[in-house]
């Protein structure tokens, strides 16, 4: 299945600069357990997918890209900024959407939560209100502006989590299994939302359909990149490998 692209309908007026993420011989371990081994690669493509089995290192890889996790050895550079020394600047450039939106929504009501990120960035209140209004309308949440976040449906919560990142205007967004907790209709909805983003995206997922229009897919296996190429090359290879 492939979701159509309607970028022009919702894209911001200005064209975002393309980011480059570079990993140089990156290894990461939690205590004695090594979860990523000697990863070296550069991401410049607008749409990058990451697949692999549970425990293969996908989520750790995703967290390395915006400095949530720092490498045990090696270097991660985002537009030349080292995540170890320039983590705040990196996180302003690279947004992150978590698997469980409940862990990402920190304020009791929808609009207040959307304002959280840009407030931290020091954005002017009038501009915050404008951005909040924009994403509320864009994602059909305008009727829920003052609703308690915990009363939203699972799909609406994930849209709120994505919107909460978008209002921070990142240049690249990393999604860590954004559709794992969603039903089919909401999975398709979130997939469309990702597809329509002007930002570069890195999507970690088990939903292979999500990757149909992607530029590049990385397959992780035991903390290493086992395959790297177009979806047409890598997805069938991965499916055959686990069959």
């Amino acid at each position, binding site marked *: 299945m492939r979701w159509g692209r309607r970028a022009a309908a919702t894209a911001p007026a200005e064209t975002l600069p393309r980011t480059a993420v570079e990993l140089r011989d990156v290894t990461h371990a939690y205590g004695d357990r090594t979860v990523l081994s000697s990863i070296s690669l550069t991401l410049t493509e607008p749409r990058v997918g990451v697949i692999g089995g549970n425990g293969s290192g996908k989520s750790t890889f995703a967290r390395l890209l915006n400095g949530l996790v720092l490498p045990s050895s090696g270097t991660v550079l985002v537009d030349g900024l080292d995540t170890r020394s320039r983590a705040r600047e990196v996180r302003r450039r690279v947004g992150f959407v978590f698997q469980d939106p409940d862990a990402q929504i920190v304020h009791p009501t929808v609009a207040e939560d959307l304002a*959280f990120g840009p407030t931290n960035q020091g954005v002017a209140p009038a501009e*915050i209100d404008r951005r909040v209004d924009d994403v509320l309308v864009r994602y059909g949440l305008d009727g829920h502006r003052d609703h308690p976040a915990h009363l939203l449906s699972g799909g609406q919560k994930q849209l709120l989590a994505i919107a909460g990142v978008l209002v921070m205007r990142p240049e690249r967004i990393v999604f860590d299994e954004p559709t794992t907790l969603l039903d089919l209709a909401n999975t398709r909805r979130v997939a469309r939302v990702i597809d329509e983003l002007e930002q570069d995206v890195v999507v970690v997922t088990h939903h292979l359909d999500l990757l149909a229009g992607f530029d590049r897919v990385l397959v992780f296996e035991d903390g290493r990149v086992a395959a790297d190429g177009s979806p047409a090359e890598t997805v069938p290879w991965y499916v055959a490998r686990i069959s």
Partner: protein
Amino acid sequence: MLSLYLPGASPVHRAPAGLKLAVLAALGVGLFLVSRVEVVAGALAAVLAVGLAVARLPGRALWAQVRPVWIWLAALFVVHLLVTGPLPGAVAVLRLLTLVLAAAVVTATTRVTALVAVVEWLVQPLRLVGVRPARVGLVVAMTLRFIPLLAERAARIREAQTARGAERVRLGLLVPLVISVLQLAHTLSEALDARGADDTPARPLRRAAGSVGPA
């Protein structure tokens, strides 16, 4: 307060949160300084007038706040009836009822952001001992956000245990709930980092009326 805000454009909605909280505090003190039933009843009537006529809150929203406590109010009246008599009982019940309704009016007409901003202002003096008011405000907001979420997670664990034959779940709930909370806290700390919680705006920002932005 967890989810009680009802949007509106009334003068009560537009009034500063600090003023509303100050009036609420003054009412709480004042009501306990008077013991005449007609004064307390008058205060109750005034609170109802402000809530229903000025703020235009639906009656059911106010009743929703009274419903959980009415049984205690009734019990308090019965105790007073037996110990001090009907008039002191009526005064005691009317006092508490007035305060519950006044608090309901405040929370129904004030965004959490505005209440948190008042908390941050109140703790400003603690800057002298290294406390960051914005952090205190964030803790308050997150507490309000996560109480229903933790209740939901506890309910899920209880259901899972019941489904597996645990008829009376008491302490058995605690361990999985604590583990779940710790996992949530870990992801939440990452989310706070990702959303720039550690970034501090270069200067305080002015907040427009009705804005969801910073105070």
